[in-house]
């Protein structure tokens, strides 16, 4: 079998990202530090071009003996991951320059990490999954330690690296067990063989799921999240929260439903436990946090728990719920981090939520949007966050998982406490000194994210139908 260049068409967005990363690396290496602005701009352009190519690309294709799958599911999630990565990169450029951490490799590592995410979303077998996971994570470890003169940032990078390597090891062990007991690495072929659960297969599932749970930072594999989110430079945290979570969740769902549909009752127990534990920890542990980045870390653990409710249902409705949840989660995360990135006073950045005191009087528009995002994160109707939770819980109830849905609703009530406290601090406390004016790109992201969460319920049709079509591709 010879591979022609034309046959690579479905992988065009990935090829574009890989080639542009390599060319930009050469450009940056030859021109030196003053190339940073150009490289940032071109990297954003490459992400945008990849987004266009993903949208225009073929709806259904399978490359490299099924290792690379293109379908409605992969297209939906690639669009999300690219928007998340592009938004995070656009927001980071100015911040890094002001903090004197700008270097041209940052944008290139973001590009390569995004490429890893896209390979992960399209992965059709275990090797492609593992390589995508490593490509994505390795670049993330490096940018977590981007501020290498800060002990906290270095610690974040090292901690993430060591724990990430451990989770990769667990995933590989599980993958080798699955290969050993089914004789295949291809998801579709594994599904054909794995009709009856055997002990070895179950161990393989447990270990691969442990590795994947680490990447989506679900309890009990969440320990790294608060420290890494707090230690890494804020734009890097934005990127961590927005894009890799989506890719990891995407491959989690695809692996569970494409490779292991006949042994669903085996992994459903794991997912139900992980989901309940994540929702509970995300709600309770965030109450004591003052640092907004740490708070968002716990919040993201909780949100991944809510998204996993949809996977636990294991139905088409459930997958649609996961996809809607991820869309809304990404918008809310980008918007909230746009606010955190703009918390700058004359003497530097602040990160505690009580610094937001009286924001409603010093900058009312920003306070309004941030309040909307907080209400949405808490899941208060009719905002986007409520609808996202509604669809995953609906899927759980239709699948007969009443306990899971009830626990989910209860934890989201607990979680509402710390989101609403931020609103209270902004609207009812004595004003703290005003922040420096917000840069235009942060304004743009905040406005888009805020309007999306506010107005999602007015016209949710396009996203609901796209998510529905994407979910159908897996069944």
């Amino acid at each position, binding site marked *: *079998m010879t*591979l022609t260049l034309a046959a690579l068409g479905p992988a065009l967005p990935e090829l574009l990202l*890989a080639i542009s990363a*390599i060319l930009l*690396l050469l450009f940056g290496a030859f021109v030196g530090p003053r190339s940073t602005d150009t490289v940032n701009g071109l990297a954003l352009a490459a992400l945008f071009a990849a987004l266009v190519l993903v949208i225009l690309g073929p709806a259904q294709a399978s*490359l*490299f*003996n099924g*290792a*690379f799958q293109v379908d409605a599911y992969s297209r939906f999630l690639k669009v999300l991951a690219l928007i998340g990565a592009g938004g995070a990169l656009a927001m980071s450029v100015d911040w890094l320059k002001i903090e004197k951490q700008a*270097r041209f*490799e940052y944008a*290139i*590592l973001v590009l*390569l990490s995004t*490429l*890893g995410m896209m*390979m992960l979303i399209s992965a059709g077998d275990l*090797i*492609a999954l593992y*390589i*995508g996971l*490593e*490509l994505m994570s*390795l*670049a993330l*470890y*490096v940018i977590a*330690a*981007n501020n*290498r003169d800060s002990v906290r940032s270095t610690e974040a*990078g090292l901690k993430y690296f060591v724990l990430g390597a451990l989770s990769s090891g667990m995933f590989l062990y599980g993958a080798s*067990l699955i290969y*050993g*007991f*089914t*004789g*295949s690495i291809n998801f579709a*072929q594994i599904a054909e*063989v*794995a009709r009856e659960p*055997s*002990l*070895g297969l179950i*161990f393989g599932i447990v270990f691969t799921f442990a590795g994947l749970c680490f990447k989506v930072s679900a309890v009990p594999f969440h320990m790294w999240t608060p420290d890494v989110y707090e230690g890494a430079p804020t734009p890097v945290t934005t990127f961590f929260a927005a894009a890799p979570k989506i890719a990891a969740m995407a491959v989690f769902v695809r692996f569970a439903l494409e490779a292991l549909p006949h042994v669903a009752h085996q992994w459903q127990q794991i997912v139900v436990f992980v989901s309940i534990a994540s929702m509970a920890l995300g709600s309770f542990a965030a109450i004591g946090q003052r640092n907004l980045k740490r708070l968002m870390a716990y919040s993201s653990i909780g949100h991944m728990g809510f998204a996993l409710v949809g996977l636990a249902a294991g139905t088409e409705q459930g997958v649609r719920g996961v996809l809607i949840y991820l869309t809304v989660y990404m918008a809310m995360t980008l918007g909230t981090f746009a606010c955190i990135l703009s918390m700058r006073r004359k003497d530097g950045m602040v990160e505690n939520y009580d610094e937001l005191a009286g924001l409603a009087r010093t900058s009312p528009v920003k306070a309004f949007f941030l309040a909307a995002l907080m209400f949405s994160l808490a899941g208060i109707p009719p905002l986007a966050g409520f609808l996202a939770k509604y669809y995953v819980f609906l899927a759980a109830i239709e699948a007969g998982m009443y306990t899971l849905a009830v626990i989910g609703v209860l934890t989201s009530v607990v979680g509402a406490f710390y989101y609403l406290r931020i609103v209270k601090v902004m609207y009812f406390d004595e004003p703290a000194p005003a922040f420096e004016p917000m840069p235009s790109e942060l304004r743009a992201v905040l406005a888009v994210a805020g309007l999306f969460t506010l107005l999602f319920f007015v016209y949710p049709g396009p996203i609901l139908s796209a998510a529905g079509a994407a979910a159908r591709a897996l069944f």
Partner: protein
Amino acid sequence: MSLAALFFYLFAGVAVASAFMVIASRNPVHSVLFLILTFVNASGLFILIGAEYLAMLLVVVYVGAVAVLFLFVVMMLDVDFVELRQGFLQYLPVGGLVGFIFLAELVLVVGSWSFGQGVTGAVVAPAPGVSNAVQIGRVLYTDYVYFFQAAGLVLLVAMIGAIVLTLRHKENVKRQSIPVQNARTKAMAIDVVKVPSGKGL
């Protein structure tokens, strides 16, 4: 017992024993040397199952490059390993428990070992007269080209990462510039000074 089985037990026994010594020996240099012994024995096991290319690769890459690099790092860095082991007893109960669970799982998995339906069919005997290297080469750049290229990108990220995290452009460092050195002329290098007689410079 056939000769092959004898060698299998020899290699396997030494590999397990030296792997244990890697974590048990007090001197880190000894640890690395035991690690090398483990690799050599593992490559012996590869030769026994007829994978001579992998065996050579293991020796060349792991013993020749990685382990020697390790040895350099261990010798260059002043790591106090006695201090690192201080918490050993404190963590022993938890670590022992985790290790025991792992062991129990391994026993369960190995005890229930049965190949899936596809496995025995998928295992292809090496074609006679074709060496391992040729066989790997035939699939590496055709069936597995995607993984090959993607693994290359992973290595590229590792390289960028190492440079980003460690390279510092220091001021006040004199750097060698070969073009400048080559372009030197007599006028640039020699300064002819007329020294008046009877006086120093």
